[in-house]
């Protein structure tokens, strides 16, 4: 797959000396959905802002569709649409005039049919003559998405698009994202909702303290970094974990009826056979067992906490 966005050695040091991005290397393939995860202050917005021209990079290069975003900013920016994290709209403009403005600003000739299509897809068509200030917060966010799509971008950035929005808008948004992807638009989004990344994204990147600590195929990432949990459904509930098993990372759940064991599926010895043997030696019978893959959230928490431990060494 050809790369549509290439970021090389991107570093951003803010005026106050704070280093928000450190040597970021990232390739986004044409037509994929990439989710950027990371705690607050990780640098996600800074990264997006640097690509879109809102923040000037301190060093490094960014190319969009082969165009350097600094030197050939016109063709580069013309293909990018941005929905920023913060709600910011022109209060006195009508919905229609604000999306027309956006299309023109990005150098495109008027195309009422396209704007109508965008507004309908976002359930804004009936509101097109309304002043933006009369709309609800959720509607304003839809307006910002419509503005970003007005010039038919081939790369779309969504910065925390679902933070604080209602269920309906979230559902509409993901439907829109899917249909955009089908039409070939590349989508890069940041989110706090890991389930969303898990459900929507093809690839996931994790940013922590200005560093991109991992970017991988979502499935591969979960395999590679995933931990599994073995749940044993006991015949008799246990009051406490037997002393003989004190060295194992075990947890009692469901009032002592379930014994949980976390293990790394990549480890040479997962410990599962040994644990089962010890349980039978101790005379703790179980009715059933199952294993489950850890979620991205758990992967993410592990990654970040590994980092923090590492940095203290």
């Amino acid at each position: 797959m050809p790369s549509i966005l290439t970021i090389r050695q991107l570093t951003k040091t803010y005026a106050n000396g704070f280093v928000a991005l450190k040597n970021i290397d990232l390739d986004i393939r044409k037509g994929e959905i990439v989710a950027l995860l990371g705690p607050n202050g990780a640098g996600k917005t800074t990264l997006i802002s640097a690509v879109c021209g809102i923040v000037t990079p301190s060093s490094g290069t960014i190319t969009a569709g082969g165009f350097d975003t600094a030197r050939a900013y016109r063709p580069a920016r013309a293909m990018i649409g941005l929905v920023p994290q913060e709600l910011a709209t022109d209060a006195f403009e009508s919905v229609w005039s604000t999306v027309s403005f956006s299309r023109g600003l990005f150098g495109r000739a008027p195309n009422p049919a396209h704007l109508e299509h965008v507004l309908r897809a976002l359930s804004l068509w009936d509101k097109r003559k309304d002043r933006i200030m009369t709309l609800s917060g959720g509607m304003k966010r839809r307006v910002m998405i419509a503005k970003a799509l007005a010039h038919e971008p081939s790369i779309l950035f969504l910065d925390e698009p679902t933070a604080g929005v209602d269920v309906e808008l979230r559902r509409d948004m993901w439907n829109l994202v899917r249909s955009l992807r089908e039409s070939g638009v590349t989508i890069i989004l940041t989110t706090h909702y890991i389930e969303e990344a898990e459900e929507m994204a093809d690839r996931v990147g994790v940013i922590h303290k200005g560093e991109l600590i991992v970017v991988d195929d979502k499935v591969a990432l979960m395999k590679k970094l995933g931990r599994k949990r073995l749940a044993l459904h006991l015949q008799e509930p246990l009051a406490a974990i037997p002393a003989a098993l004190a060295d194992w990372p075990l947890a009692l759940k469901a009032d002592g009826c379930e014994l949980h064991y976390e293990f790394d599926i990549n480890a040479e010895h997962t410990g599962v056979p040994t644990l089962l043997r010890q349980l039978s030696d101790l005379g703790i019978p179980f009715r059933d067992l199952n294993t489950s893959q850890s979620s991205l959230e758990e992967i993410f928490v592990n990654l970040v906490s590994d980092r923090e431990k590492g940095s203290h060494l």
Partner: protein
Amino acid sequence: MSFNGHGVWSIYRFEMARALRTLVQSLVTPVLTTSLYFVVFGSAIGGRMGEVEGVNYGAFIVPGLIMLSLFTESLFNASFGIYFPKFTGTIYELLSAPVSAFETVLGYVGAAVTKSVVLGLLILATASLFVPLHIQHPLVMIAFLLLTATTFSLFGFIIGVCANSFEQIQVIPMLVVTPLTFLGGAFYSIDMLPGVWKTIALFNPVVYLISGFRWSFYGTADVAVGISLTAISGCFLVCLAIIWWIFATGYRLKK
């Protein structure tokens, strides 16, 4: 795409739409205020003033009053136009758009100039209702009108880019431009000032503007019209250079 004409037009239209929404504030108020000046200074006081440099006093103050409105409106319109998106956060769109610095300035300053020139002409028309007007050099008059509106709109744009609050946008017109205009011969000829003040007045750039503008009406001037034109052109170039520097360094617009 080497020139984003759609982009410039979008900005221009957006700014003009804003003016139309606030028509009372942007046109009616200044016209009414200036009319009051004519009534008070032109008719009430001017009736006892006789003539200045061979011109009826009411007519004498017309160029100065138009200039005063041109200064304040150009400054306010252009500074507000670029400051407001900074204030509301909608500037993100402009920064992420394929619009060059030149195109941005063309859109915002072009709209501010249009509004100021329309206002200037409206005040001129209003004035003609109160006092006998005669314009000796209409082309020079238009040139001064355009150059002044453009220069002060550029200046306003700079203020808007640098401003961190609405107060700062209002302070410069209030604290700098209004005094300079009143001291700049809007209501009198510099020749009427006593000795040393006449020399001091020559350091006031507004003197050259009003003097040149008045020359285009009545053919009389405090300083030679060539010097006036040079002075305003110089101010224009200085503003252009500052704006070029602002965009070249990304000063205060980008993080």
